[in-house]
């Protein structure tokens, strides 16, 4: 039950490029990545596309489909209307390498800037005790497959290249939140550095990261806003600030 569809694919590299429209068969049950593979196998053997697991678990095949940041392996063909031309481009927040492949190294650099998990110094392997309800919040953020769609759609860097220096992006705000909510983490200045070094204050909570997350992580509601509130606790709330000075610590239990 193959039906022909039109695919308008951006091809090129950092020096320039253009759209190429091809007509290709799509079978029942297929996703955009299948169709791109068919184009590769039958029409454009050197079409560059990054992919890996094809099951929405590795986050490699991030691209923009009809202008929306998506995973090509999780975008079903039957969500498009009969006869619709589907436009496929590389991620538009990152430098392009070739065709649908972008250079996402920005994200790996940012990952290296986030202070790592710091367990208590006297904790021995096997002796950690954590309750399920205490790990659940952080577990949600660890579902992240690092597809970087949230980074791509975030207007702070998508629309302002110059902000890349000072802004870690939603993916790393959930990393910071994960660690700040970790029941055993001992590093206590994560709130302050989130605001002062990683650009949490740049976020204006317009929620596009949450909209595009293929893992349905509630990035804004469960990580960014709680982190903003925690930042207020230590930086902008005089009552809390005084309390923490008296008790000489930043967190309460």
């Amino acid at each position, binding site marked *: 039950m193959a039906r022909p569809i039109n695919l308008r694919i*951006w091809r*090129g590299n*950092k020096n*320039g*490029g253009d759209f190429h429209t091809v007509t290709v068969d799509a079978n029942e049950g297929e996703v955009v990545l299948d169709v791109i593979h068919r184009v590769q196998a039958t029409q454009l053997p050197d079409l560059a596309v990054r992919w890996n697991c094809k099951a929405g678990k590795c986050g490699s095949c991030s691209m*923009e489909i*009809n*202008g*929306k*940041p998506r995973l090509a392996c999780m975008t079903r063909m039957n969500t498009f209307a009969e006869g619709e031309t589907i*436009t496929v*481009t*590389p991620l*538009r*927040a*990152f*430098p*392009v390498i070739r065709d649908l492949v*972008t*250079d996402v190294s920005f994200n790996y650099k940012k990952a290296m800037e986030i202070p790592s998990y710091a367990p208590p110094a006297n904790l021995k392997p096997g002796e950690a005790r954590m*309750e399920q*309800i*205490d790990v659940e919040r952080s577990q949600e953020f660890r579902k992240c497959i690092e597809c970087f769609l949230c980074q791509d*759609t975030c*207007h*702070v*860097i*998508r*629309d*302002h*290249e*110059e*902000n890349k220096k000072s802004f870690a992006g939603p993916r790393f705000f959930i990393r910071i939140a994960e660690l700040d909510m970790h*029941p055993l983490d001992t590093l206590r200045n994560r709130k302050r550095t989130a605001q002062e070094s990683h*650009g949490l*204050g*740049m*976020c*204006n*909570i*317009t*929620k*596009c990261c949450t*909209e*595009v997350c293929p893992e349905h992580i509630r990035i804004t*509601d469960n990580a960014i*806003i*709680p982190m*903003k*509130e*925690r*930042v*207020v*606790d230590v*930086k*902008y*709330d005089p009552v809390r600030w005084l309390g923490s000075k008296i008790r000489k610590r930043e*967190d*309460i*239990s």
Partner: protein
Amino acid sequence: MAGVHAEHRAHIQERTLRTDRWWLQPAATVFVLVSFIIYATFRAFENKHYFVEKGELISPFYSPCLSDACVEGTQLFGTLGPSSLWGFAISPALLILIFPLGFRLTCYYYRKAYYRSFWQSPPACAVAEPHKKYTGETKQPLILQNGHRWFFYAGLVFNAILTYDAFLAFHGPDGGFGMSVGTLVLLANATLLWLYSLSCHTCRHTVGGRLRHFSKHPLRYKLWTRISILNHHHANFAWVSLFGVAFADLYIRLVSTGAITNYFFF
């Protein structure tokens, strides 16, 4: 718009390649919010038709009424003195609207709504914004958004007052205990305001979100899980409660001007 057209990114002219009606949501937001602002401004300056004596209905715009210009029976906490002291005749609404307005203005949901629709930053996901520079909420005045919790606390006081107003409205046509459509309107309004306040992100943070170990605070954890469920619908409550306030005020105005009659159940 150096962003999507920055060097080394894929050279694509279009500001967005989205094919859906992405502009619909911001446009609708602008329309609704502007309508509300126009109506609220008009009502705040109108300085009348905010109280219906028969059944004791007071408009949420004017409660608590703090001016000596307030109609007898509405001055819940007394007055701030004769308006002549202030040098001009001030509408009592202007003194109090600032608090609920501030709560909504700094609300995490409304911020999203107006940043997207009014400021177009961004107008919709993956649609390039028109601004050259962007610093988010790191500088004045937007850094003041961090004061949301103070407005939240004030909002709770207002909720309590409006709830009290709703109870005061349990009056029959003869002044004794009773109930009218107006009672229901005020009750619904107060309920929606509570839902909006309790579902707020700051509330969620305060009751339990700031804790590191839920297991050590079972009661607060339970509260947090409940508030989290409400929080999921915060955007809906934000809109519905906004309509609720406007509707309650409009209802009282219409009754007050005699355009409609407040129906009494008993």
